[in-house]
């Protein structure tokens, strides 16, 4: 493999990892507050279709991403009302949100099918990215940098701020947090809305950076990978970033392996199965270290009903 190919693989890997990372970061915060929202895929699709609609109507990418975040956050708040205020089952409601998002996006996206969406490029001047090695640093779409900034921001928020401490307290022991006077429901609403907004931005990556068009089910299950990744990363932002890039590399490795003669020793089905094989191996390794399972927020998925 020449260095050009290695750079190309790394570039494409960052692109593929980014939507998963963005969505998983949002879900990490949601789960840290003790809520399990399985509707990530649905919210991503809402974000994706809104992005396409706004981009094609106004041509303004920033507005499109903002609308995508807002719309997906709104979808998340529907989930919030049902599970937090009305104490509905979170697993069932989350799955319903995915179905709702899939259906809504398919219906809403009808007029936009079959149109090319202008993509967003790198935020840096093009001259910086002419050299292949510099391209690795400066040649990505703006989402790649945003996702990495958000990793640090989420870590800093959870570990270094008072609000982050409260959010974790709500997720670990909702009754104690409640008795100390914190609004458990209020914190969880905020977390759910943030998770929705992040999923919406993740959805926006697809039409603006990866597949410049709208088709039904555009995100092809990446929301589920994001959900798995949160567990995989044991609810830690930096491990989440590493996990997302690892998944991204596995997914991308397949497409390069299939088209390169160096990998012809094994059939293409093997490379297609590789991400899943790698997942199993990594999960086994993590569980051997006996720290994966104990790191789940204690109140994850349990409804909170304040007594009195």
């Amino acid at each position, binding site marked *: 493999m020449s260095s050009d190919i290695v750079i190309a693989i790394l570039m494409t890997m960052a692109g593929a990892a980014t939507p998963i990372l963005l969505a998983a970061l949002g879900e990490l915060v949601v789960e840290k507050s003790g809520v399990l929202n399985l509707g990530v895929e649905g919210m991503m699709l809402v974000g994706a279709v809104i992005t396409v609609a706004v981009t094609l109507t106004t041509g303004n990418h920033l507005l499109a991403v903002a609308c995508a975040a807002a719309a997906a956050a709104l979808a998340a708040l529907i989930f919030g009302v049902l599970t937090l205020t009305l104490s509905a089952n979170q697993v069932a409601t989350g799955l319903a949100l995915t179905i709702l998002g899939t259906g809504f996006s398919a219906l809403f996206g009808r007029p936009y*099918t079959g149109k090319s969406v202008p993509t967003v490029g790198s935020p840096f001047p093009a001259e910086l990215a002419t050299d292949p090695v510099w391209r690795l640093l400066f040649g990505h779409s703006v989402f790649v940098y945003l996702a990495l900034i958000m990793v640090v921001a989420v870590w800093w928020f959870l570990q270094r701020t008072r609000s982050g401490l409260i959010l974790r307290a709500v997720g670990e022991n909702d009754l104690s947090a409640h008795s100390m006077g914190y609004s458990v429901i209020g914190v969880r609403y905020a977390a759910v809305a943030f998770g929705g907004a992040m999923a919406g931005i993740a959805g926006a990556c697809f039409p603006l950076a990866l597949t410049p068009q709208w088709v039904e089910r555009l995100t092809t299950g990446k929301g589920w990978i994001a959900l798995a990744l949160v567990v995989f990363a044991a609810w830690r932002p930096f491990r989440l970033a590493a996990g997302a890039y690892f998944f991204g590399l596995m997914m991308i490795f397949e*497409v390069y392996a*299939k088209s390169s003669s160096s990998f012809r020793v094994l059939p293409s089905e093997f490379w297609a199965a590789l991400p899943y094989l790698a997942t199993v191996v990594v999960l086994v390794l993590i569980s051997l270290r006996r720290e994966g399972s104990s790191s789940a927020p204690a109140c994850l998925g349990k409804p909170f009903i304040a007594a009195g």
Partner: protein
Amino acid sequence: MTQFNRRTMLKIGGAAAALPLLGSRAFAQEKLKVGFVLIGMPDDNGWNYGHDRGRQEMLAAIGEDKVETTVVTNVPEGPDAERVFRELAQQGHKLIYGTSFGYGDYIHKVAKQFPDVKFEWATGNATAPNVSIYNAKFHEGRAVIGTVAGLMTKTNKLAYVGSIPIPEVRMGANAFAIAARKVNPNVTVKVVYIDSWFDPAKEAEQARALIDQGVDIIAQHTDGPVIPQIAEERGIVGVFGQGADMSAFAPNTQLTAIIDRWGPHYTKSVQSVLDGTWVESSVWDGLASGEVEIGPYNAKVPADVVAKAEEVKAAIIAGTLHPFAGPIKDNTGTERVAAGDVIDDGEFWGVDWYAEGIEA
């Protein structure tokens, strides 16, 4: 037209069995009810679009006073398809088209239970007394685009992105490679599969990976226009529309397109059901009968290349050129077809090798 998707079918499925939902229509003119089962959406600008356009042409030709259609979209090639076919049959559809290869088992199963309902299986490989198969010789079109690709590539690296490794897809790649090497013996064709009929993200990533490795012309056998978009974005020499004209997605890069025309077949087969003359059959036509069309050539394709491509097309239509005429070697160097021989329509489905010049 009644348009259902998979989810509304779920809802009405149970109700339809119990309630005479469509009873009121039975009093009207005894319209023939025709069902279409699609694997994706009619607005995919590719495979499903082609079938839906064929349906519309059929409706226009026969008249909506004689026939009404139901389209069920997004039906996966799995056990759920069986339910969809059964429900269409139960709802009184007398002719049902399944437009994907993977529906075969389910069509045959349901067809046994509804002997008076006619089924037609697109790209299928087995018939029954009430199951016909119909297909188009896309490989004839691929011989034409292979000629264009062989003449226009600068890096001599071509690629063929396939969906699933079934005989039809493999033979498309073979036809493309054989034609390209006939005009340019130096080209190699990378054949890769995305292992799905629909996965735009993977198609895009695969296209980027190929371009990164020096491929400058990509042909595809997948359903949507993502690859032309990526090719346009990267500014490579060319791509080819598949199933439909995709020049809207790649105005500077689509060299030409292979266009599916199912209208003539649908019109003929619906008419035969109306006339009571439908019989078990296996239809497989190509360029000559208009089921496969070559789209307009991009302005950047030089006149001599267009002339050569049109010459290949005309020769195939006239029957003087066979896309699989020997001598053909496979990619290990073994001679598979002797000079003067061809791979005939029967042998076609059993070919399990790739032609010389293919890296797969």
